[in-house]
């Protein structure tokens, strides 16, 4: 979906439900390029669906939508002949409404309320689990909004069976559901309602009049977060923040005011910059790369990171440090190249409207948010854009910066060796190559979703699909890791093979760009041939499907000694390799068992 489209985002003040609904009414785009979204409501969903559609259009992620009949979620999900199944959705959204459950919860005395809440939540979970079994689907469930009313007043926290605690219990059950099911995701409506204000969220008149789960002014905020999830599922992820320094990470101009003169620390707006850095540090911990892109002398620019006592960010937190007097467009491209990531996975943060407009104009793929004038607004503003949505967390996220820094070091070392092979041999590389198990599934799915360049077919298998194939006796879902004396790169390649008669078809082959030119693909092929022989296949068949981003691997199969079998006018090529007379490449990579 949407390959090649520009991702845009809308700041929240532009979220107007009337305009978005009008946009949706302009009629469907070409349906074949749309993500298919089924909205199932325990309330009316017409406004919400229209807002979703309008928003999808305005951010370049068009949707084709389907709505279940009012309050007919069970019928839609449980009856396999229902329109839901014919619609064949990519996404199923469960629009919940705490208003619909309120009477059921209040119907029983507080002593029985948590039990009732558990039953109600389990009912939603069962439906979501059932919907999650649809082929290739991802399910999005709206969490419940904890109501504003408190008959016990400030004593509420002590009352075990209060309505608030009952609704919180339901949300915990949903959290648990999403944690244990790879293709179920949540929109935290209670968070959205809290940020907007619960009095703005709830409009009881509209619930009674038309069963609206919130005031329509809140709908775009919900839709926006649902869309962020859709995009994350489809692999549209932000991977890196490009950071200006002067008046972005600290107040004042380092070059003019000197290390002691910049505003950073416990005084005045210096606190705001510390708070912003702490927020960025947390993003780094969850796997977002931080890069410095500054007009400064490099040595001087590094000094605060090394010496200033109030800096939260240190040099080791920065994956790529670029400070010079070139124009920023040049430097943005340079950083993308060094980190080996796409321009459209980068966000450019700069207090200068001049620099923002320059980058916006000349590198339109990069996301360039406006920045508030007041640094105290940096965190609330950036956070409100919800740019960093992701549907998988992996144990490697926190180590990502460290691994990338090792890559940059490694490349520095490479220039010392004239001969690449000699250099590679000096690295002492070792790699695991194993079937994907439960422990490695999240990272494998993440890699399949994030990788654009070294990706032969760009099929975005979800974790659920990978798991399903891993259990299929005709399929092999394999991963490779890579480690050397500079550090551990972790899980960096995934291959999916499927036996079709005497052929083993390579459905998917992805590899992290961080390990390109390390001969890991040769190591993987050696192992693949072994795997093919084990299951009695005589040939490997691979396909290259060109996209805007994967030209890197156009010659992949040819380089590995495959023979071209077919070429189609759309640029797809099919390649074959006989396994009987295959000579292993034997690159200098030791297999870890």
């Amino acid at each position, binding site marked *: 979906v949407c390959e090649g489209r520009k991702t845009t985002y809308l700041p929240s003040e532009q979220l107007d*439900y*009337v305009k978005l*609904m*009008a946009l949706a009414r302009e009629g469907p785009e070409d349906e074949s390029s749309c993500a298919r979204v089924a909205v199932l409501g325990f309330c009316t969903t*017409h*406004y919400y669906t229209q807002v979703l559609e309008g928003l999808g259009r305005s951010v370049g992620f068009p949707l084709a939508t389907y709505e279940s009949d009012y309050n007919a979620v069970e019928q839609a999900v449980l009856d396999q002949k229902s329109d839901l199944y014919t619609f064949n959705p990519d996404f199923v959204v469960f629009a919940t409404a705490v208003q619909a459950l309120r009477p059921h919860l209040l119907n029983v005395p507080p002593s029985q309320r948590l039990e009732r809440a558990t039953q109600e939540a389990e009912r939603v979970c069962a439906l979501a689990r059932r919907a999650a079994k649809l082929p290739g689907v991802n399910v999005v469930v709206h969490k419940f909004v904890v109501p504003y009313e408190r008959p016990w007043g400030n004593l509420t926290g002590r009352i075990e069976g209060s309505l608030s605690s009952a609704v919180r219990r339901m949300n915990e059950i949903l959290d648990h559901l999403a944690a244990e099911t790879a293709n179920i995701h949540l929109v935290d409506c209670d968070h959205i309602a809290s940020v907007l204000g619960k009095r703005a969220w709830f409009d*009881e*008149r*509209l619930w*009674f*009049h*038309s069963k*609206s789960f919130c*005031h*329509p*002014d809140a709908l775009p905020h919900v839709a926006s977060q649902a869309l962020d999830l859709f995009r994350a599922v489809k692999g549209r992820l932000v991977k890196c923040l490009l950071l200006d320094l002067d008046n972005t990470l600290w107040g004042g101009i380092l070059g003019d005011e000197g290390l002691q003169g910049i505003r950073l620390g416990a005084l005045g707006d210096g606190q705001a910059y510390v708070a912003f850095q702490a927020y960025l540090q947390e993003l780094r911990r969850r796997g977002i790369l931080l890069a410095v892109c500054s007009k400064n002398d490099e040595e001087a620019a590094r000094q605060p990171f090394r010496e200033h006592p109030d800096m939260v960010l240190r040099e080791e937190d920065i994956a790529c440090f670029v400070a010079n007097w070139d124009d920023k467009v040049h430097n943005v491209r340079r950083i993308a190249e060094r980190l080996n990531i796409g321009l459209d996975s980068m966000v450019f943060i700069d207090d200068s409207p001049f620099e923002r407009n320059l980058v916006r104009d000349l590198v339109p793929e990069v996301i360039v948010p406006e920045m508030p004038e007041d640094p105290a607004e940096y965190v609330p503003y950036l956070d409100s854009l919800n740019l960093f949505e992701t549907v998988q967390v992996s144990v490697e996220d926190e180590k990502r910066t460290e691994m990338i820094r090792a890559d940059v070091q490694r490349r520095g070392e490479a220039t010392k060796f004239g001969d690449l092979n000699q250099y590679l041999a000096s690295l002492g590389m070792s790699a695991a190559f194993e079937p994907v198990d439960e422990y490695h599934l999240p990272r494998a799915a993440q890699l399949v979703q994030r990788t654009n360049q070294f990706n032969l077919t760009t099929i975005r298998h979800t974790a659920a699909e990978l798991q399903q194939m891993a259990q299929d006796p005709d399929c092999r879902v394999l991963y490779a890791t890579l480690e050397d004396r500079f550090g551990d790169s972790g899980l960096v390649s995934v291959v999916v093979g499927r036996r079709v008669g005497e052929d083993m078809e390579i459905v998917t082959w992805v590899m992290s760009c961080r390990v390109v030119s390390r001969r890991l693909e040769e190591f993987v092929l050696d192992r693949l041939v072994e795997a093919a022989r084990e299951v009695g296949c005589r040939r490997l068949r691979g396909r290259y499907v060109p996209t805007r981003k994967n030209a890197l691997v156009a010659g992949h199969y040819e380089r590995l000694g495959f023979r071209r079998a077919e070429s189609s006018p759309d640029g797809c090529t099919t390649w074959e390799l006989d396994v009987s007379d295959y000579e292993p490449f034997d690159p200098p990579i030791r297999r870890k068992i």
Partner: protein
Amino acid sequence: VTREEILAGLGDVFCQVLGREVDLAEETTPAEVEGWDSLAHVTLILATEKRFGVKFTGAEIANAAGIGALIALIEKKLRH
């Protein structure tokens, strides 16, 4: 605020919500305005509330069928 001013204000609201110029008179009923169905009704009412800084009750939302009724309601709310 005169009834004429309210009528003009409603014209703005309808235009904004329905995305086109709408000719409104005190006698206009929903049936006479293309697009003023039960779904658009809520949007029209909420936009009217915002435009005039008033708030309708649930019953008023349900019963405000027609421009004359809307004008009368707004007049009443603005007087208090």
